[in-house]
């Protein structure tokens, strides 16, 4: 038990440290480093920023290697290296493997044309899969939702009716704003102006939500500093005081 506790300690400069405590201090230091940008650009912020980019890229490479390249390519070609050594080798994976390698040809100017084939394959695949889905999702279903009966067939729900009416008027007026084949005069001028108001409301809602999202990130950091880091600080300070 004591050995296990000993092995979970980090030894730095002869000091025995708990890795969780070290992690909390690192998080706090990096939080302050990133927030220091508010005072102005500085080397501490730059260091934290580069560290973040580097770690994210490194983590991404390791994950893709471990979760994609090894199980989907190497272990399929050489099953004896993977968790299922009794399986037969699957040589079909050579085709996507080769396409993936051709993508890397972009780094060699003389052979960068090779990368066009996997790109063309990917574009073709996703256009084929995507067009029906996007048409169904963004056009047909949305148009159907816009054309809900305003007054309904049976009893009238006034709140719902008003909501349907606002959606209908909003869609028509906003579409007329983007109709440029005739000058925006007369009826078209009025509807396009109403369309601008609907657009402004949508932008305002988007901006409000963005503010809320950014504020939430700050709240998250403050919560970390107050509820996770500060208790550690107070424990350390109390040891000093004693």
């Amino acid at each position, binding site marked *: 038990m004591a050995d296990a506790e000993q092995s979970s300690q980090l030894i730095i400069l002869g000091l025995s440290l708990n890795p969780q405590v070290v992690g909390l201090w690192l998080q706090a230091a990096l939080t302050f480093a990133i927030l220091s940008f*508010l*005072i102005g650009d500085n080397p501490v912020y730059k260091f934290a920023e580069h560290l973040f980019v580097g770690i*994210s890229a490194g*983590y*991404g490479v390791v*994950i*893709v290697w471990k*979760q*994609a390249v090894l*199980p*989907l390519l190497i272990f399929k070609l050489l099953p004896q290296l993977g*968790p299922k050594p009794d399986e037969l080798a699957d040589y079909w994976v050579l085709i996507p493997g080769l396409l993936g390698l051709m993508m890397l040809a972009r780094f060699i100017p003389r052979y960068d044309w090779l990368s066009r084939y996997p790109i063309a394959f990917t574009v073709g695949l*996703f256009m084929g*899969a*995507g067009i029906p*889905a*996007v048409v*169904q*999702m963004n056009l047909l*279903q*949305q148009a*159907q*939702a816009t054309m809900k009966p305003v007054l309904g067939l049976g009893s009238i729900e006034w709140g719902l009716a008003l909501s349907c009416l606002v*959606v209908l008027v909003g869609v028509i007026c906003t579409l007329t704003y983007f109709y440029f084949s005739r000058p925006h005069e007369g009826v078209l001028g009025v509807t396009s102006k109403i369309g601008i108001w609907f657009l402004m409301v*949508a932008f305002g*809602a*988007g901006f409000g*939500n*963005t*503010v*809320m*999202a950014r*504020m*939430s*990130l*700050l*709240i*998250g*950091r*403050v*919560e970390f500093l*107050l509820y996770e880091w500060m208790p550690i600080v107070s424990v350390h300070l109390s040891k000093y005081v004693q």
Partner: protein
Amino acid sequence: MGELLRKLESIDRRWIYLVIFAAVVIPFLMNLKLPVGKHSPSTTAVHDYIEQLPPGSVIQMSFDYSPASMPELEPMAKAVVRHAFEENHRILAMTLHPQGALMIRRALDEVATDLNKEYGVDYVDVGFKPGGVAVILGMGRDIIRVFEDMDARGEKLSAMPMMRDVADYDDIALMIDFAANSLPLAWIGYAHERYGLQIAAGVTAVMATDLYPYWKSEQLVGLINGLKGAAEYEELVGAPGFGVLGMSSQSIAHLLIILFIIMGNIGYFVTRRASQNRT
């Protein structure tokens, strides 16, 4: 008055940062608890949908976010996981985001341990799978095959009691995507439209505006919007956590920003009128 407004117009923006920082910190220090307010219909819709599912239903959850979006999405993810477990539903956790595997462990394992849920019986974590749309489409045909019959811990999926009842989307009662990106749209486009999978989303507030039309058109069962949605869901399941705790700071900071916007506009119109008078 005009002089004061002119001074405010040229104020160093770092003072504004400081005031906002104070507005966020002070409610925590004073343990201020402002009401979350009326629950949004879109959040309640997710809650009610889970409530009406028969016990033992399988809910798929995709944790498509990274530590950068954790403050907004983790509280709601924990609240929904808690709700699903309390209703005796089973959870199939996955992620299409490379950094999502850690997010699953943080949100799922803690609540599962708290409620004595058993791995492999009540919940399964299949971890990260690269491929995005290809994974979504593949799961509609054979979920175990897409994940190479292996979970995030390297154990065989087909040997787990829970996975004996889960072959494809027909066996999933609801799929919830916690995302800080456009992946909910991919789930709607490829899993809902093609396979009829019922989908809900819990997203960052930045993403929510784009997704409300899909809730209105009933392509989404419901939508949990940012920290506010997380706080609402925590209240709905009676387990206030970091979502509720953060909302007091959120409300005060928002009031302050509204005040800044009003002051900015007054300043703009006063200085414009003054310059017009001069000319």
